Protein backbone atom coordinates (compact mmCIF):
# COMPACT_ATOMS: atom_id res chain seq x y z
CA UNK A 1 0.00 0.00 0.00
CA UNK A 2 0.84 3.65 0.07
CA UNK A 3 4.54 3.59 0.79
CA UNK A 4 4.49 6.99 -0.87
CA UNK A 5 1.92 8.36 1.60
CA UNK A 6 2.93 11.91 2.35
CA UNK A 7 3.25 12.73 5.98
CA UNK A 8 5.07 15.28 8.10
CA UNK A 9 8.37 16.02 6.24
CA UNK A 10 10.44 14.98 9.25
CA UNK A 11 13.58 14.05 7.32
CA UNK A 12 13.68 17.34 5.44
CA UNK A 13 13.05 19.25 8.68
CA UNK A 14 15.83 17.34 10.36
CA UNK A 15 18.39 18.19 7.72
CA UNK A 16 17.49 21.86 8.08
CA UNK A 17 17.70 21.69 11.88
CA UNK A 18 21.04 19.91 11.89
CA UNK A 19 22.55 22.69 9.76
CA UNK A 20 21.33 25.41 12.14
CA UNK A 21 24.25 25.85 14.53
CA UNK A 22 22.48 28.43 16.74
CA UNK A 23 19.59 26.00 17.19
CA UNK A 24 21.89 23.08 17.99
CA UNK A 25 23.79 25.12 20.59
CA UNK A 26 20.57 26.33 22.22
CA UNK A 27 19.10 22.84 22.27
CA UNK A 28 22.10 21.12 23.72
CA UNK A 29 22.54 23.80 26.41
CA UNK A 30 18.89 23.71 27.43
CA UNK A 31 18.18 20.00 27.36
CA UNK A 32 21.39 19.11 29.17
CA UNK A 33 20.76 21.73 31.85
CA UNK A 34 17.24 20.43 32.39
CA UNK A 35 18.34 16.81 32.48
CA UNK A 36 20.97 17.63 35.14
CA UNK A 37 18.53 19.69 37.21
CA UNK A 38 15.98 16.92 37.07
CA UNK A 39 18.51 14.31 38.14
CA UNK A 40 19.52 16.51 41.11
CA UNK A 41 15.91 17.10 42.13
CA UNK A 42 14.98 13.43 42.18
CA UNK A 43 18.19 12.07 43.68
CA UNK A 44 17.20 12.33 47.34
CA UNK A 45 13.49 11.48 47.15
CA UNK A 46 11.60 8.15 47.02
CA UNK A 47 11.09 8.58 43.28
CA UNK A 48 10.06 5.02 42.48
CA UNK A 49 7.41 5.05 45.16
CA UNK A 50 6.00 8.35 43.84
CA UNK A 51 6.09 7.17 40.22
CA UNK A 52 4.29 3.97 41.09
CA UNK A 53 1.64 5.87 43.01
CA UNK A 54 1.20 8.48 40.28
CA UNK A 55 0.99 5.84 37.59
CA UNK A 56 -1.68 3.84 39.41
CA UNK A 57 -3.71 7.00 40.12
CA UNK A 58 -3.60 7.92 36.43
CA UNK A 59 -4.59 4.37 35.45
CA UNK A 60 -7.50 4.47 37.88
CA UNK A 61 -8.70 7.60 36.06
CA UNK A 62 -8.28 6.02 32.61
CA UNK A 63 -10.13 2.90 33.72
CA UNK A 64 -13.13 5.04 34.65
CA UNK A 65 -12.60 8.08 32.47
CA UNK A 66 -16.19 8.95 31.67
CA UNK A 67 -17.14 8.54 35.35
CA UNK A 68 -14.49 11.03 36.47
CA UNK A 69 -15.27 13.48 33.68
CA UNK A 70 -18.95 13.43 34.64
CA UNK A 71 -18.13 13.80 38.32
CA UNK A 72 -15.82 16.72 37.60
CA UNK A 73 -18.46 18.39 35.42
CA UNK A 74 -21.10 17.98 38.12
CA UNK A 75 -18.91 19.44 40.86
CA UNK A 76 -17.53 22.27 38.77
CA UNK A 77 -21.11 23.22 37.91
CA UNK A 78 -22.04 23.11 41.58
CA UNK A 79 -19.16 25.53 42.25
CA UNK A 80 -20.55 27.99 39.72
CA UNK A 81 -18.67 27.15 36.51
CA UNK A 82 -20.39 26.51 33.20
CA UNK A 83 -19.07 23.25 31.77
CA UNK A 84 -19.02 22.50 28.04
CA UNK A 85 -17.96 19.35 26.22
CA UNK A 86 -16.23 19.49 22.86
CA UNK A 87 -16.00 16.40 20.68
CA UNK A 88 -13.19 17.73 18.52
CA UNK A 89 -10.95 20.72 17.84
CA UNK A 90 -13.54 22.54 15.75
CA UNK A 91 -16.14 22.08 18.45
CA UNK A 92 -13.85 23.55 21.10
CA UNK A 93 -12.81 26.48 18.89
CA UNK A 94 -16.43 27.31 18.09
CA UNK A 95 -17.45 27.16 21.74
CA UNK A 96 -14.65 29.44 22.91
CA UNK A 97 -15.11 31.92 20.08
CA UNK A 98 -18.85 32.15 20.65
CA UNK A 99 -18.48 32.68 24.42
CA UNK A 100 -16.16 35.61 23.68
CA UNK A 101 -18.20 37.02 20.80
CA UNK A 102 -21.49 36.82 22.69
CA UNK A 103 -19.96 39.05 25.37
CA UNK A 104 -18.36 41.45 22.94
CA UNK A 105 -14.82 40.52 23.99
CA UNK A 106 -12.21 41.42 21.36
CA UNK A 107 -9.06 40.77 23.34
CA UNK A 108 -8.20 37.91 25.69
CA UNK A 109 -5.13 37.39 27.88
CA UNK A 110 -3.93 33.83 27.66
CA UNK A 111 -1.76 31.69 29.85
CA UNK A 112 0.26 28.83 28.38
CA UNK A 113 -1.78 25.85 27.24
CA UNK A 114 -0.56 23.03 25.02
CA UNK A 115 -4.09 21.84 24.34
CA UNK A 116 -4.91 25.28 22.90
CA UNK A 117 -1.98 24.70 20.52
CA UNK A 118 -3.43 21.29 19.68
CA UNK A 119 -6.68 22.92 18.49
CA UNK A 120 -4.87 25.93 16.91
CA UNK A 121 -6.99 28.28 18.96
CA UNK A 122 -5.10 31.53 18.40
CA UNK A 123 -5.31 31.35 14.60
CA UNK A 124 -8.99 30.61 14.74
CA UNK A 125 -9.74 33.44 17.16
CA UNK A 126 -7.79 35.83 14.96
CA UNK A 127 -9.91 34.88 11.96
CA UNK A 128 -12.97 35.53 14.13
CA UNK A 129 -11.68 39.01 14.94
CA UNK A 130 -10.46 38.22 18.48
CA UNK A 131 -6.88 38.93 19.56
CA UNK A 132 -5.42 36.52 22.07
CA UNK A 133 -2.31 37.74 23.84
CA UNK A 134 0.09 35.07 25.09
CA UNK A 135 1.42 36.12 28.49
CA UNK A 136 3.94 33.44 29.42
CA UNK A 137 7.28 35.01 28.47
CA UNK A 138 8.31 32.11 26.23
CA UNK A 139 4.92 31.98 24.53
CA UNK A 140 4.96 35.76 24.14
CA UNK A 141 8.36 35.60 22.41
CA UNK A 142 7.20 33.02 19.89
CA UNK A 143 3.89 34.81 19.35
CA UNK A 144 5.77 38.01 18.52
CA UNK A 145 7.98 35.92 16.20
CA UNK A 146 4.95 34.27 14.57
CA UNK A 147 6.15 30.78 15.49
CA UNK A 148 4.84 27.81 17.42
CA UNK A 149 6.33 26.36 20.62
CA UNK A 150 9.28 23.99 20.24
CA UNK A 151 9.10 22.57 23.75
CA UNK A 152 6.03 21.88 25.84
CA UNK A 153 7.46 23.58 28.95
CA UNK A 154 9.92 26.11 27.51
CA UNK A 155 8.30 27.20 24.24
CA UNK A 156 11.14 29.48 23.07
CA UNK A 157 13.93 27.07 23.98
CA UNK A 158 15.22 27.24 20.39
CA UNK A 159 16.03 30.95 20.56
CA UNK A 160 19.12 32.51 22.08
CA UNK A 161 19.19 35.90 23.84
CA UNK A 162 20.48 37.76 20.79
CA UNK A 163 17.65 36.44 18.65
CA UNK A 164 15.11 37.50 21.29
CA UNK A 165 16.79 40.92 21.55
CA UNK A 166 16.66 41.45 17.78
CA UNK A 167 13.06 40.27 17.66
CA UNK A 168 11.94 42.68 20.39
CA UNK A 169 13.89 45.56 18.86
CA UNK A 170 12.23 44.98 15.50
CA UNK A 171 8.69 44.12 16.53
CA UNK A 172 8.26 46.08 19.76
CA UNK A 173 10.38 49.01 18.57
CA UNK A 174 12.51 49.08 21.69
CA UNK A 175 16.24 49.47 22.07
CA UNK A 176 18.24 46.31 21.41
CA UNK A 177 19.45 44.41 24.43
CA UNK A 178 20.55 40.83 24.89
CA UNK A 179 20.19 40.92 28.66
CA UNK A 180 17.43 38.50 29.73
CA UNK A 181 16.59 40.81 32.67
CA UNK A 182 16.02 43.78 30.36
CA UNK A 183 14.07 41.71 27.84
CA UNK A 184 11.89 40.28 30.60
CA UNK A 185 11.19 43.78 31.93
CA UNK A 186 10.14 44.95 28.46
CA UNK A 187 7.66 42.07 28.12
CA UNK A 188 6.40 42.60 31.66
CA UNK A 189 5.56 46.23 30.96
CA UNK A 190 3.63 45.47 27.79
CA UNK A 191 1.77 42.58 29.37
CA UNK A 192 0.89 44.34 32.65
CA UNK A 193 -1.23 46.78 30.64
CA UNK A 194 -2.92 43.84 28.94
CA UNK A 195 -3.70 42.13 32.25
CA UNK A 196 -5.23 45.20 33.82
CA UNK A 197 -7.44 46.01 30.87
CA UNK A 198 -8.48 42.48 29.86
CA UNK A 199 -12.16 41.58 29.77
CA UNK A 200 -11.41 37.87 29.56
CA UNK A 201 -8.66 35.47 30.57
CA UNK A 202 -7.90 32.07 29.11
CA UNK A 203 -6.02 29.19 30.72
CA UNK A 204 -5.40 25.52 30.34
CA UNK A 205 -5.15 23.20 33.32
CA UNK A 206 -2.45 20.88 34.55
CA UNK A 207 -4.97 18.79 36.47
CA UNK A 208 -8.67 18.72 37.26
CA UNK A 209 -9.87 17.30 40.57
CA UNK A 210 -13.09 15.38 40.00
CA UNK A 211 -14.47 15.37 43.55
CA UNK A 212 -14.28 19.15 43.97
CA UNK A 213 -14.60 20.36 40.37
CA UNK A 214 -11.31 22.29 40.71
CA UNK A 215 -8.78 23.02 38.02
CA UNK A 216 -5.11 23.22 38.96
CA UNK A 217 -2.65 25.53 37.20
CA UNK A 218 1.13 25.52 37.75
CA UNK A 219 3.09 28.63 36.75
CA UNK A 220 6.38 30.27 37.61
CA UNK A 221 5.86 33.74 36.26
CA UNK A 222 2.46 34.52 37.76
CA UNK A 223 0.79 35.09 34.40
CA UNK A 224 -1.53 32.16 34.97
CA UNK A 225 -2.73 33.76 38.19
CA UNK A 226 -3.26 37.10 36.44
CA UNK A 227 -5.29 35.50 33.64
CA UNK A 228 -7.49 33.60 36.08
CA UNK A 229 -8.08 36.29 38.74
CA UNK A 230 -8.04 39.73 37.12
CA UNK A 231 -10.56 39.60 34.25
CA UNK A 232 -14.24 39.07 35.10
CA UNK A 233 -14.50 36.18 32.62
CA UNK A 234 -12.30 33.07 32.72
CA UNK A 235 -12.35 30.35 30.09
CA UNK A 236 -10.41 27.16 30.81
CA UNK A 237 -9.74 24.50 28.19
CA UNK A 238 -8.66 21.04 29.26
CA UNK A 239 -8.41 17.69 27.60
CA UNK A 240 -10.54 15.06 29.27
CA UNK A 241 -7.68 12.91 30.61
CA UNK A 242 -6.45 15.69 32.93
CA UNK A 243 -8.64 14.31 35.70
CA UNK A 244 -7.39 13.18 39.07
CA UNK A 245 -9.92 11.66 41.47
CA UNK A 246 -9.48 14.13 44.33
CA UNK A 247 -7.47 17.10 45.62
CA UNK A 248 -5.98 14.62 48.08
CA UNK A 249 -4.24 13.04 45.07
CA UNK A 250 -2.66 16.33 44.05
CA UNK A 251 0.46 16.31 46.32
CA UNK A 252 2.06 13.37 44.49
CA UNK A 253 1.71 15.19 41.18
CA UNK A 254 2.89 18.46 42.70
CA UNK A 255 6.03 16.67 43.80
CA UNK A 256 6.61 14.96 40.47
CA UNK A 257 5.68 17.50 37.80
CA UNK A 258 8.00 20.45 38.62
CA UNK A 259 10.89 18.15 39.55
CA UNK A 260 10.57 16.30 36.25
CA UNK A 261 10.04 19.46 34.21
CA UNK A 262 12.56 21.99 35.50
CA UNK A 263 14.11 20.37 38.55
CA UNK A 264 12.19 22.68 40.89
CA UNK A 265 10.70 21.44 44.17
CA UNK A 266 7.54 23.34 43.27
CA UNK A 267 6.67 25.96 40.69
CA UNK A 268 6.43 29.48 42.15
CA UNK A 269 2.65 29.34 41.95
CA UNK A 270 0.17 26.51 42.15
CA UNK A 271 -3.41 27.72 41.87
CA UNK A 272 -6.44 25.62 42.64
CA UNK A 273 -9.47 27.28 41.11
CA UNK A 274 -12.94 26.08 42.02
CA UNK A 275 -15.82 27.83 40.29
CA UNK A 276 -16.67 31.49 40.50
CA UNK A 277 -16.23 34.19 43.13
CA UNK A 278 -18.46 33.65 46.16
CA UNK A 279 -20.45 36.34 48.02
CA UNK A 280 -17.74 36.96 50.65
CA UNK A 281 -14.77 36.67 48.32
CA UNK A 282 -12.64 39.25 46.52
CA UNK A 283 -10.80 36.85 44.23
CA UNK A 284 -12.01 34.81 41.30
CA UNK A 285 -13.75 35.38 37.99
CA UNK A 286 -17.43 36.28 38.06
CA UNK A 287 -18.11 34.00 35.11
CA UNK A 288 -16.18 30.82 34.44
CA UNK A 289 -16.46 28.45 31.49
CA UNK A 290 -14.69 25.11 31.35
CA UNK A 291 -14.37 23.40 27.98
CA UNK A 292 -13.54 19.69 28.20
CA UNK A 293 -11.99 18.44 24.98
CA UNK A 294 -12.21 14.86 23.73
CA UNK A 295 -10.55 15.07 20.29
CA UNK A 296 -10.17 11.31 19.93
CA UNK A 297 -9.23 10.52 23.51
CA UNK A 298 -12.34 8.54 24.37
CA UNK A 299 -11.28 6.20 21.52
CA UNK A 300 -7.57 6.14 22.47
CA UNK A 301 -8.46 5.12 26.04
CA UNK A 302 -10.09 1.93 24.79
CA UNK A 303 -7.11 0.84 22.68
CA UNK A 304 -3.65 -0.63 23.11
CA UNK A 305 -1.97 2.79 23.35
CA UNK A 306 -4.16 3.98 26.22
CA UNK A 307 -1.29 4.47 28.65
CA UNK A 308 -0.19 7.47 26.61
CA UNK A 309 -3.07 9.31 28.28
CA UNK A 310 -1.31 9.02 31.66
CA UNK A 311 1.08 11.73 30.43
CA UNK A 312 1.21 14.88 32.59
CA UNK A 313 3.17 16.99 30.04
CA UNK A 314 6.32 17.58 32.07
CA UNK A 315 8.68 17.45 29.11
CA UNK A 316 11.23 15.18 30.81
CA UNK A 317 11.16 12.74 27.87
CA UNK A 318 11.94 15.58 25.46
CA UNK A 319 15.00 16.61 27.45
CA UNK A 320 16.20 13.00 27.69
CA UNK A 321 15.74 12.12 24.02
CA UNK A 322 18.90 12.10 21.87
CA UNK A 323 16.87 12.92 18.77
CA UNK A 324 14.99 15.84 20.33
CA UNK A 325 18.24 17.15 21.79
CA UNK A 326 19.75 17.29 18.30
CA UNK A 327 16.92 18.56 16.14
CA UNK A 328 14.66 20.54 18.51
CA UNK A 329 10.88 20.63 18.57
CA UNK A 330 10.01 22.31 15.28
CA UNK A 331 11.43 19.44 13.19
CA UNK A 332 8.57 17.23 14.37
CA UNK A 333 6.11 19.47 12.53
CA UNK A 334 3.49 18.77 15.19
CA UNK A 335 2.07 20.37 18.34
CA UNK A 336 3.73 17.89 20.67
CA UNK A 337 7.38 17.03 19.95
CA UNK A 338 9.77 14.50 21.46
CA UNK A 339 8.96 10.92 22.44
CA UNK A 340 5.55 11.71 23.99
CA UNK A 341 4.84 13.85 20.95
CA UNK A 342 5.56 11.08 18.45
CA UNK A 343 3.11 8.75 20.16
CA UNK A 344 0.42 11.34 20.83
CA UNK A 345 0.63 12.88 17.36
CA UNK A 346 0.28 9.46 15.74
CA UNK A 347 -2.76 8.72 17.90
CA UNK A 348 -4.40 12.13 17.41
CA UNK A 349 -3.57 12.76 13.75
CA UNK A 350 -3.30 9.23 12.38
CA UNK A 351 -0.50 7.11 10.94
CA UNK A 352 -1.06 8.59 7.45
CA UNK A 353 0.21 11.94 8.65
CA UNK A 354 2.53 11.01 11.49
CA UNK A 355 4.38 7.93 10.22
CA UNK A 356 7.64 9.76 9.36
CA UNK A 357 7.94 10.76 13.04
CA UNK A 358 8.50 7.13 13.95
CA UNK A 359 12.01 7.59 12.54
CA UNK A 360 12.63 10.10 15.34
CA UNK A 361 13.49 7.50 17.95
CA UNK A 362 16.59 5.48 18.66
CA UNK A 363 14.60 3.16 20.96
CA UNK A 364 17.25 3.84 23.61
CA UNK A 365 14.62 3.87 26.35
CA UNK A 366 15.75 7.08 28.07
CA UNK A 367 12.23 8.53 27.75
CA UNK A 368 10.71 5.64 29.65
CA UNK A 369 13.32 5.90 32.40
CA UNK A 370 12.56 9.53 33.21
CA UNK A 371 8.77 9.48 32.83
CA UNK A 372 7.25 10.44 36.22
CA UNK A 373 4.02 8.52 35.57
CA UNK A 374 5.59 5.48 33.92
CA UNK A 375 4.16 5.88 30.44
CA UNK A 376 5.80 2.91 28.68
CA UNK A 377 7.07 5.16 25.88
CA UNK A 378 9.71 2.74 24.49
CA UNK A 379 7.09 -0.02 24.22
CA UNK A 380 4.52 2.29 22.61
CA UNK A 381 7.09 3.60 20.14
CA UNK A 382 8.19 0.10 19.18
CA UNK A 383 4.60 -1.06 18.79
CA UNK A 384 3.79 1.95 16.60
CA UNK A 385 6.82 1.11 14.46
CA UNK A 386 5.53 -2.43 14.04
CA UNK A 387 2.16 -1.04 13.09
CA UNK A 388 3.82 1.25 10.58
CA UNK A 389 5.42 -1.74 8.89
CA UNK A 390 2.22 -3.80 9.06
CA UNK A 391 0.25 -1.02 7.44
CA UNK A 392 2.87 -0.42 4.77
CA UNK A 393 3.96 3.07 5.72
CA UNK A 394 7.69 2.42 5.38
CA UNK A 395 9.50 3.69 2.26
CA UNK A 396 9.50 1.33 -0.76
CA UNK A 397 13.29 1.07 -0.77
CA UNK A 398 13.30 0.05 2.90
CA UNK A 399 10.58 -2.53 2.28
CA UNK A 400 12.52 -4.04 -0.63
CA UNK A 401 15.80 -4.02 1.29
CA UNK A 402 14.16 -5.74 4.25
CA UNK A 403 12.54 -8.35 1.97
CA UNK A 404 15.95 -8.99 0.36
CA UNK A 405 17.66 -9.22 3.73
CA UNK A 406 15.01 -11.65 5.00
CA UNK A 407 15.52 -13.83 1.96
CA UNK A 408 19.34 -13.74 2.28
CA UNK A 409 19.54 -14.63 5.96
CA UNK A 410 17.56 -17.80 5.36
CA UNK A 411 20.51 -19.18 3.40
CA UNK A 412 23.88 -19.54 5.15
CA UNK A 413 25.76 -19.41 1.85
CA UNK A 414 24.05 -16.24 0.67
CA UNK A 415 24.53 -14.59 4.05
CA UNK A 416 28.27 -15.21 4.24
CA UNK A 417 28.62 -14.19 0.58
CA UNK A 418 26.87 -10.93 1.48
CA UNK A 419 29.21 -10.40 4.42
CA UNK A 420 32.25 -10.92 2.22
CA UNK A 421 30.89 -8.54 -0.38
CA UNK A 422 30.22 -5.91 2.27
CA UNK A 423 33.76 -6.34 3.63
CA UNK A 424 35.17 -5.56 0.21
CA UNK A 425 32.80 -2.92 -1.12
CA UNK A 426 31.88 -0.87 1.94
CA UNK A 427 35.40 0.55 2.54
CA UNK A 428 35.68 1.42 -1.16
CA UNK A 429 32.23 3.02 -1.17
CA UNK A 430 32.87 5.04 1.95
CA UNK A 431 36.15 6.37 0.56
CA UNK A 432 34.48 7.42 -2.66
CA UNK A 433 31.39 8.92 -0.99
CA UNK A 434 33.05 10.54 2.02
CA UNK A 435 30.27 13.08 2.62
CA UNK A 436 27.33 10.72 2.19
CA UNK A 437 25.66 8.28 4.55
CA UNK A 438 28.10 5.57 3.45
CA UNK A 439 31.01 7.75 4.54
CA UNK A 440 29.66 7.93 8.07
CA UNK A 441 29.24 4.17 8.40
CA UNK A 442 31.83 2.31 10.48
CA UNK A 443 34.25 0.07 8.58
CA UNK A 444 33.32 -3.63 8.77
CA UNK A 445 35.52 -5.74 11.07
CA UNK A 446 38.22 -7.81 9.34
CA UNK A 447 36.75 -10.97 10.88
CA UNK A 448 32.97 -11.23 11.15
CA UNK A 449 31.25 -11.78 14.46
CA UNK A 450 29.98 -15.26 13.57
CA UNK A 451 33.48 -16.40 12.59
CA UNK A 452 34.92 -14.96 15.80
CA UNK A 453 32.49 -16.82 18.07
CA UNK A 454 32.23 -20.10 16.15
Amino acid at each position, binding site marked *: MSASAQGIPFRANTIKALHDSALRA*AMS*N*ATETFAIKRADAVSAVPLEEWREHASSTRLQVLDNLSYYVDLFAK*NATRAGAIVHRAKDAQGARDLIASILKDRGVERVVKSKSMVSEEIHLNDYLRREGITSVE*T*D*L*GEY*IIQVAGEGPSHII*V*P*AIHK*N*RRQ*VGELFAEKLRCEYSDD*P*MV*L*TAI*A*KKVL*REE*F*LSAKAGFSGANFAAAD*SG*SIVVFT*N*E*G*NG*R*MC*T*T*LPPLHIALLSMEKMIP*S*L*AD*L*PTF*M*RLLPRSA*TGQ*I*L*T*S*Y*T*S*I*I*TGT*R*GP*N*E*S*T*GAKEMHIVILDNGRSQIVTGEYREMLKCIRCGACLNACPVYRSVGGHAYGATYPGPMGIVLTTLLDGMEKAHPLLDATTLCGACGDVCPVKVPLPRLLRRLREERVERGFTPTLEQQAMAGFGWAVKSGTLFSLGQKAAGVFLPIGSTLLKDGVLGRMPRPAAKTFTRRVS
Partner: protein
Amino acid sequence: MSRDAVIELFMTNAARAAAEPVRVADHEGFLAAVGQIVQDCPSVFCPEITEKERAALTAVQSECRELDYRKATVCIDEVLGAIAESGSIVCASDSGHPIQAGLLALHHVAIVPKENIYETLDEFFLKWKDSPPTNITLETGPSRTADIELTLTIGVHGPARLSIIVV
Protein backbone atom coordinates in the same frame (compact mmCIF):
# COMPACT_ATOMS: atom_id res chain seq x y z
CA MET B 1 7.74 16.31 64.15
CA SER B 2 7.50 18.98 66.87
CA ARG B 3 5.85 22.32 66.09
CA ASP B 4 9.21 24.04 66.32
CA ALA B 5 10.81 21.57 63.92
CA VAL B 6 7.97 22.09 61.43
CA ILE B 7 8.43 25.87 61.63
CA GLU B 8 12.18 25.52 61.18
CA LEU B 9 11.72 23.21 58.19
CA PHE B 10 9.37 25.75 56.64
CA MET B 11 11.86 28.60 57.20
CA THR B 12 14.68 26.57 55.63
CA ASN B 13 12.67 25.54 52.57
CA ALA B 14 11.18 29.01 52.05
CA ALA B 15 14.69 30.50 52.06
CA ARG B 16 15.80 27.80 49.63
CA ALA B 17 13.00 28.90 47.28
CA ALA B 18 14.45 32.47 47.43
CA ALA B 19 11.78 33.85 49.77
CA GLU B 20 12.90 35.92 52.77
CA PRO B 21 11.43 34.39 55.92
CA VAL B 22 11.76 35.90 59.41
CA ARG B 23 10.33 34.62 62.67
CA VAL B 24 9.18 37.05 65.36
CA ALA B 25 8.62 36.26 69.01
CA ASP B 26 6.15 38.92 70.06
CA HIS B 27 4.08 41.94 69.02
CA GLU B 28 7.02 44.35 69.26
CA GLY B 29 9.15 42.07 67.17
CA PHE B 30 6.36 41.85 64.59
CA LEU B 31 5.99 45.64 64.31
CA ALA B 32 9.73 46.05 64.08
CA ALA B 33 9.93 43.47 61.28
CA VAL B 34 7.12 45.17 59.32
CA GLY B 35 8.66 48.58 59.90
CA GLN B 36 12.00 47.43 58.60
CA ILE B 37 10.52 45.82 55.49
CA VAL B 38 8.32 48.78 54.47
CA GLN B 39 10.96 51.38 55.26
CA ASP B 40 11.20 53.78 52.26
CA CYS B 41 8.32 52.09 50.42
CA PRO B 42 6.18 54.79 48.77
CA SER B 43 2.94 52.82 48.41
CA VAL B 44 1.86 50.00 50.67
CA PHE B 45 -1.43 48.13 50.35
CA CYS B 46 -2.83 46.25 53.33
CA PRO B 47 -6.39 44.89 53.24
CA GLU B 48 -7.03 45.50 56.99
CA ILE B 49 -9.23 42.44 57.26
CA THR B 50 -7.48 40.66 60.12
CA GLU B 51 -6.20 41.91 63.43
CA LYS B 52 -2.59 41.27 62.43
CA GLU B 53 -3.06 43.28 59.24
CA ARG B 54 -4.46 46.21 61.19
CA ALA B 55 -1.53 45.97 63.55
CA ALA B 56 0.92 45.83 60.65
CA LEU B 57 -0.55 48.98 59.16
CA THR B 58 0.36 50.95 62.28
CA ALA B 59 3.99 50.39 61.29
CA VAL B 60 3.36 52.06 57.91
CA GLN B 61 3.44 55.84 57.68
CA SER B 62 0.02 57.17 56.72
CA GLU B 63 1.23 58.98 53.57
CA CYS B 64 2.62 55.67 52.28
CA ARG B 65 -0.65 53.76 52.50
CA GLU B 66 -2.31 52.84 49.22
CA LEU B 67 -5.93 51.75 49.07
CA ASP B 68 -5.90 50.53 45.44
CA TYR B 69 -3.85 47.35 45.30
CA ARG B 70 -3.32 47.79 41.56
CA LYS B 71 -1.17 50.82 42.30
CA ALA B 72 0.77 49.53 45.30
CA THR B 73 4.41 48.49 45.17
CA VAL B 74 4.16 46.52 48.42
CA CYS B 75 1.31 44.31 49.59
CA ILE B 76 1.17 43.20 53.22
CA ASP B 77 -1.43 40.60 54.05
CA GLU B 78 -2.08 37.73 56.39
CA VAL B 79 -2.22 34.43 54.54
CA LEU B 80 -3.99 31.24 55.46
CA GLY B 81 -0.87 29.32 56.37
CA ALA B 82 2.20 27.64 55.00
CA ILE B 83 3.63 24.26 54.04
CA ALA B 84 6.94 23.16 55.51
CA GLU B 85 7.71 20.45 52.95
CA SER B 86 7.91 22.91 50.06
CA GLY B 87 8.48 26.25 51.79
CA SER B 88 5.23 27.55 50.30
CA ILE B 89 2.80 30.06 51.75
CA VAL B 90 -0.89 29.44 51.16
CA CYS B 91 -3.26 32.20 50.08
CA ALA B 92 -6.98 31.43 50.08
CA SER B 93 -9.93 33.50 48.92
CA ASP B 94 -12.43 32.48 51.61
CA SER B 95 -11.14 35.06 54.09
CA GLY B 96 -12.31 37.82 51.75
CA HIS B 97 -8.76 38.72 50.75
CA PRO B 98 -8.10 39.89 47.20
CA ILE B 99 -5.20 37.45 46.86
CA GLN B 100 -4.24 38.93 43.48
CA ALA B 101 -2.99 41.96 45.46
CA GLY B 102 0.04 39.98 46.55
CA LEU B 103 0.68 39.08 42.91
CA LEU B 104 0.51 42.55 41.36
CA ALA B 105 2.83 44.22 43.88
CA LEU B 106 6.57 44.23 43.34
CA HIS B 107 7.06 43.02 46.89
CA HIS B 108 4.70 40.66 48.73
CA VAL B 109 4.93 40.60 52.52
CA ALA B 110 3.02 37.64 53.92
CA ILE B 111 2.11 37.27 57.57
CA VAL B 112 1.93 33.59 58.52
CA PRO B 113 0.36 32.49 61.84
CA LYS B 114 2.75 29.83 63.08
CA GLU B 115 -0.03 27.47 64.18
CA ASN B 116 -1.13 27.24 60.51
CA ILE B 117 2.07 25.73 59.17
CA TYR B 118 1.41 22.26 57.79
CA GLU B 119 4.18 19.74 57.65
CA THR B 120 3.28 18.18 54.29
CA LEU B 121 1.24 18.93 51.21
CA ASP B 122 -0.89 15.87 51.95
CA GLU B 123 -1.84 17.18 55.37
CA PHE B 124 -2.89 20.46 53.82
CA PHE B 125 -4.97 19.06 50.96
CA LEU B 126 -6.81 16.56 53.12
CA LYS B 127 -8.23 19.53 54.98
CA TRP B 128 -10.34 20.67 52.02
CA LYS B 129 -12.18 17.47 51.18
CA ASP B 130 -14.42 18.36 48.26
CA SER B 131 -15.31 21.99 49.00
CA PRO B 132 -12.31 24.29 48.66
CA PRO B 133 -12.74 28.07 48.35
CA THR B 134 -12.77 29.64 44.88
CA ASN B 135 -9.03 30.20 44.86
CA ILE B 136 -6.21 28.59 46.78
CA THR B 137 -2.74 29.59 45.68
CA LEU B 138 0.50 28.15 46.94
CA GLU B 139 3.23 30.73 46.58
CA THR B 140 6.75 29.31 46.63
CA GLY B 141 9.36 32.04 46.35
CA PRO B 142 9.18 35.05 44.06
CA SER B 143 7.92 35.10 40.46
CA ARG B 144 10.52 33.70 38.10
CA THR B 145 11.21 32.65 34.55
CA ALA B 146 13.99 30.92 32.67
CA ASP B 147 12.42 31.30 29.25
CA ILE B 148 15.41 33.06 27.70
CA GLU B 149 18.38 30.68 27.49
CA LEU B 150 17.33 29.21 30.84
CA THR B 151 18.75 32.29 32.54
CA LEU B 152 16.91 32.67 35.84
CA THR B 153 15.14 36.01 35.99
CA ILE B 154 13.27 36.96 39.16
CA GLY B 155 10.09 39.04 39.17
CA VAL B 156 8.41 38.49 35.82
CA HIS B 157 4.70 39.20 36.22
CA GLY B 158 4.50 38.63 39.95
CA PRO B 159 6.58 39.98 42.82
CA ALA B 160 10.37 40.08 42.70
CA ARG B 161 10.50 39.74 46.47
CA LEU B 162 8.53 37.59 48.87
CA SER B 163 9.01 38.36 52.56
CA ILE B 164 7.43 36.07 55.11
CA ILE B 165 6.85 36.99 58.74
CA VAL B 166 6.07 33.99 60.91
CA VAL B 167 4.26 35.13 64.07
